[in-house]
């Protein structure tokens, strides 16, 4: 396995590292990038663990920093942040296609990275797979019921009630672990797209037979409460046949605990093998 640093993009401002296994056995390249303001290794080195696991298993893996983050310079374009991110992600695919002759891609993103992974899958037909780590989820009847029960239980437990009030106050007043950075961008939050807009986007994406893996952790129990919530939210949709969903309720949002992380990594490795092995 070898690693090559690339400086790329129309402004030559982006920096990334390609990890190239001796025997590539997947038809897609995997692209990893930032979550929030963290640099390309990601929270607790998550992207390094992903890179090692997937490259060892025969995938070419490219990790890079978006414009202005980590080791990439700011862009001089006057585009919006969203346009810039999409442009950066497109340029990462252009680079891999040009240098390594692979023209199909899997994006793996955590939280804001999951949000951006979804957006690039909508914007570019070369994206044939997405792994969303704590990505979007929509409320369902069962979610609402579980959520209601949770609040009732909390109301009768003074410690839980206090914690709930504190959490809400922190959310309203700011601060806490999900703090806002100096550029006014939330570290770990995204805006949930309107459900019907999202449904149409997914229908389009899966017309090209792209695959998706939704992995949820117990760290997002404010909007995801049971395994199958994603499927319940989009019952009878044809695109569900290309989606897999898994809930790791004991794991935290960043998979800090090694055993939890290993289970998550193995799940992604299996999904890659199931869908992208060279025949």
């Amino acid at each position, binding site marked *: 396995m070898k*690693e090559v*640093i690339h*400086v790329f993009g129309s402004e030559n401002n982006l*920096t990334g*590292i390609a990890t190239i296994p001796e025997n590539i056995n997947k038809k897609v390249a995997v692209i990893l990038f930032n979550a*929030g*303001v*963290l*640099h*390309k*290794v*990601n*929270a*607790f*080195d998550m992207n*390094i663990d992903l890179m090692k696991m997937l490259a060892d298993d025969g995938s070419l893996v490219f990790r890079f920093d978006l414009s202005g*983050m*980590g*080791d990439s*310079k700011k862009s001089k374009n006057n585009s919006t942040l969203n346009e810039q991110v999409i442009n950066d992600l497109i340029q990462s695919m252009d680079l891999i296609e040009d240098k390594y002759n692979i023209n199909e891609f899997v994006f793996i993103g955590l939280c804001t990275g999951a949000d951006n992974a979804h957006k690039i899958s909508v914007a570019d037909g070369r994206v044939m797979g997405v792994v969303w780590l704590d990505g979007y989820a929509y409320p369902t009847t069962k979610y609402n019921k579980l959520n209601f029960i949770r609040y009732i239980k909390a109301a009768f437990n003074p410690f839980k009630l206090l*914690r709930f009030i504190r*959490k809400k106050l922190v959310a309203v007043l700011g601060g*806490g*672990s999900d*703090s806002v*950075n*100096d550029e006014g961008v939330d*570290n*770990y939050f995204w805006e949930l797209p309107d459900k019907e807009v999202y449904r149409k986007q997914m229908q389009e994406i899966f017309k090209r037979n792209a695959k998706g893996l939704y992995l949820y*952790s*117990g*760290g997002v*129990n404010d909007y995801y409460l049971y395994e199958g919530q994603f499927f319940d939210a989009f019952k009878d949709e044809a695109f569900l046949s290309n989606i897999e969903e898994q809930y790791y*309720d*004991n*794991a*935290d*949002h*960043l998979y*800090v*605990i*090694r*055993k*939890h992380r290993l289970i998550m990594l193995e799940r992604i490795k299996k999904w890659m093998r199931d869908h992208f092995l060279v025949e």
Partner: protein
Amino acid sequence: MHAFFFGNIDSPLYGVSHSPTCNDFKNSAILILNPQGHEYIRSHKALRQLADALSGAGYFVLRFDYQATGDSRGELQDVTLDSWKENIKIAADELRSISGQKNITAVGLRLGASLAILSNEIAGLKNVILWDPVISGEDYIDNLDNLQSQLLANKNSWFNKPLSASVLSENELLGYQYSEAFLSSMKEMNLLTQEVPAKLRVKHFSTFSNDDVICLNEKLENDLRRFSHYEIEDMGDWDDIMKIDSALLVHKITNKIVEELG
């Protein structure tokens, strides 16, 4: 800003150099020494901003990742503090080679600051800037252990219910699995008992004060011919579980470091 691999071809180190961006070239170059683990992830942006500011002040700057950390290859199971001291020597030599400067100033944050002291002789460092150094390796390990216990106790809704410590792997500390040899080398590390050559010039910047900080200042004041300390109110929060995944947003301390380096 230029990223490159250097050092041993079998286990290359990842470095990023920042060339001077003004004409007021300085006659020394600056080596930035990272913290370890989640503290490194938190501070990457702050250290890059510091490197940008120093290159803007006329310095040639090198940031790099120790073996088995960040974008440098290797496995944590295979390293000890001695491995990282050797990495610092290699990085200092690389910096001399690419900058053409003989004199190297190390700016170290947390464990990086401790490593700057430990490696000053083998790396030929003349000046060292300490930023919230890890003074006692044993206390540092205890702090990581304490943060990990708070994580498992789930005081901040990290997951759905508190977890037992049995979920941890052997020698796992807040997301990273270390070797027994690494932990032993950390436990032996203590700046309060570390011999420091009198000729080494040290400036110590701290965001907090406690007995260890006071003792370190007294020791360095006694041992060194040139030493100064600055306590600056800025973000650190190294023992706060709420901050383990928050980017380090600092301005005052980095501005002061740049100002002091001139």
